[in-house]
């Protein structure tokens, strides 16, 4: 019985998943191992772990769901892993459900918390777009699988120590890899870097129509702020993709972040929760954005935003 943290190289979320795994190990009294596919375990050498495995094979040089899932299945069998923990990255979303299914198990994905009760671990995850939390338990025999949400555990709480690194070479054949990935690329170099912006005015679905973005633009103008948006706005072509904040866009940390008509889906929150002060304006008092807002106004943004602009004008005069 042991915990296996499956980590990605040079990835902050992986350190968070490691911190979570160490905590689960301490609470459940289980040894904790880490695995990195394709090398890069050096950064784990000074962490408190019972062992690190570098999973290496010529067929794992590029990520494929088939390769990763088959390789980790074999490593789990060798270690007798009972709980496998992942960071909830796009890559994990692609292969971890397949790995879990190969054991006829379900990945409890995107967890934000946990508790241990009578030696059983329960996870908390968000449902209904973050409006409700669900406590989930595993049924039947292990192995169990869970991925942890970005920012839910702290990377700086990783316990230091030492561990031995080993190479694990799985048995794979070329015929088992059914997809052929090409090189990752960016559509265009980013012309706009929002990461240095001091003030950001960001709009979401609540803006309703492209023409209405002007309402928020007025606020940005008077504040000297950069404009940004949540994904649906950029998908609609109402604002360029390069101004998208969130997991598929930019990560920002301004002094003030105005979230206007943004409900606060986690995909957006991971991109802006580093903001010093968050101001949310939304019609729906239950919108998850209010959970991370310092200040919130519940109301119609088409009345509230012009009122804020007026107040700023008065303050300037």
């Amino acid at each position, binding site marked *: 019985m042991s915990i296996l943290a499956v980590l990605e190289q040079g990835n902050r979320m992986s350190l968070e998943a490691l911190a979570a795994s160490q905590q689960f190990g301490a609470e459940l009294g289980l040894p904790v191992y880490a695995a990195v596919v394709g090398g890069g375990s050096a950064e784990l050498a000074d962490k408190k772990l019972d062992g690190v495995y570098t999973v290496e094979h010529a067929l794992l040089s590029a990520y494929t769901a088939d390769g990763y899932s088959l390789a980790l299945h074999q490593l789990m069998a060798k270690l007798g892993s009972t709980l496998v923990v992942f960071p909830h990255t796009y890559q994990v979303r692609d292969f971890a459900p397949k790995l879990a299914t190969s054991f006829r198990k379900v990945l409890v994905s995107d967890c934000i918390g946990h508790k241990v009760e009578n030696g059983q671990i329960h996870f908390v*995850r*968000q*449902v*209904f777009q973050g409006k*409700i939390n669900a*406590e989930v338990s595993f049924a039947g025999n292990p192995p169990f699988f869970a991925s942890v949400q970005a920012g839910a555990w702290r990377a700086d709480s990783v316990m230091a120590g030492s561990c031995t690194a080993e190479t694990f070479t799985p048995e794979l054949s070329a015929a088992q890899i059914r997809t052929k990935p090409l090189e990752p690329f960016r559509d265009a170099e980013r012309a706009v870097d929002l990461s240095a912006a001091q003030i950001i005015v960001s709009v979401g679905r609540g803006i309703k129509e492209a023409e209405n973005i002007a309402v928020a633009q007025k606020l940005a103008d008077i504040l000297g702020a950069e404009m940004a948006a949540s994904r649906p706005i950029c998908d609609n072509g109402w604002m360029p993709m390069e101004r998208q904040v969130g997991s598929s866009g930019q990560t920002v940390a301004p002094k003030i972040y105005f979230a206007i008509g943004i409900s606060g889906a986690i995909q957006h929150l991971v991109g802006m929760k580093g903001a010093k002060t968050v101001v949310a304006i939304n019609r729906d008092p239950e919108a998850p954005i209010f959970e*991370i*807002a310092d200040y919130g106004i519940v109301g119609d943004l088409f009345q*509230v935003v012009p009122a804020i602009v007026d107040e700023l004008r008065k303050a300037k005069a």
Partner: protein
Amino acid sequence: MKIAVCIKQVPARDSVLRLDGGRLQDSDLSYEINEPDAYALEEGLQLKEKHGGEVVVVCAGPERVGSTIREALAKGADRAIHIEGDLDAADPLGTATLIAKALEAEKPDLVLTGLQSDDLGYGQTGVIVAELMGLPHATIIMSVEVSASHMKIKRELENGFFQYVEVALPALLTMQSGSNKLRYATLMGIKKAKTKEVRKVDVAALGGLPEAAVTTVRMFLPERSKQSQIFEGDPRQAAAKLIEKLRFEARVL
């Protein structure tokens, strides 16, 4: 090509959600198609228009999901399979098991679904269906090009990166939202939908749900992690209060 599109019916985006004894109160909810699944359907319809063939919609749930199925047919799907039963206790593996069984005899060239559901959001039913059917898969797909028995697909990665992936048919893809423009059903489409085949298959006829691998113990409202100050009421007063706070309390203006 034969394209199967798995769609889910979820509570409407603006629904007011109420909990009762740790369970969602669903008596007065209205429902709609899961948004990412609407994009999967759109992709399926466009591929059919380009390459010919048929689009078969698969939807699991109680009687009420019939309205979502009709809507998909009205938009242009050719026929539907309704896996009928109470799936409240089903986990993603359970639902995927039923879908995989229902698709067994169909032998689709391509299975499409949304990347995740807006309700439970496990984000894996598609991947599980692929694994159970022995198909290769790829997730978070932006676009699909089919040539003969191969596909070149554009996968979204993190931080603004993308990647093309080549895969042979048959395969399963989970589609990202926003990758296409969604169509509306036409009047003609709505009329035609009434005559299209909806094959109902009972959950029991598919061998029933397997034993759940995960169980929801309870649902509860999230606690605010930050001490938020919320202003309601008159917009002018709320705005004035906000600016005062930003200037003199947070000192960021």
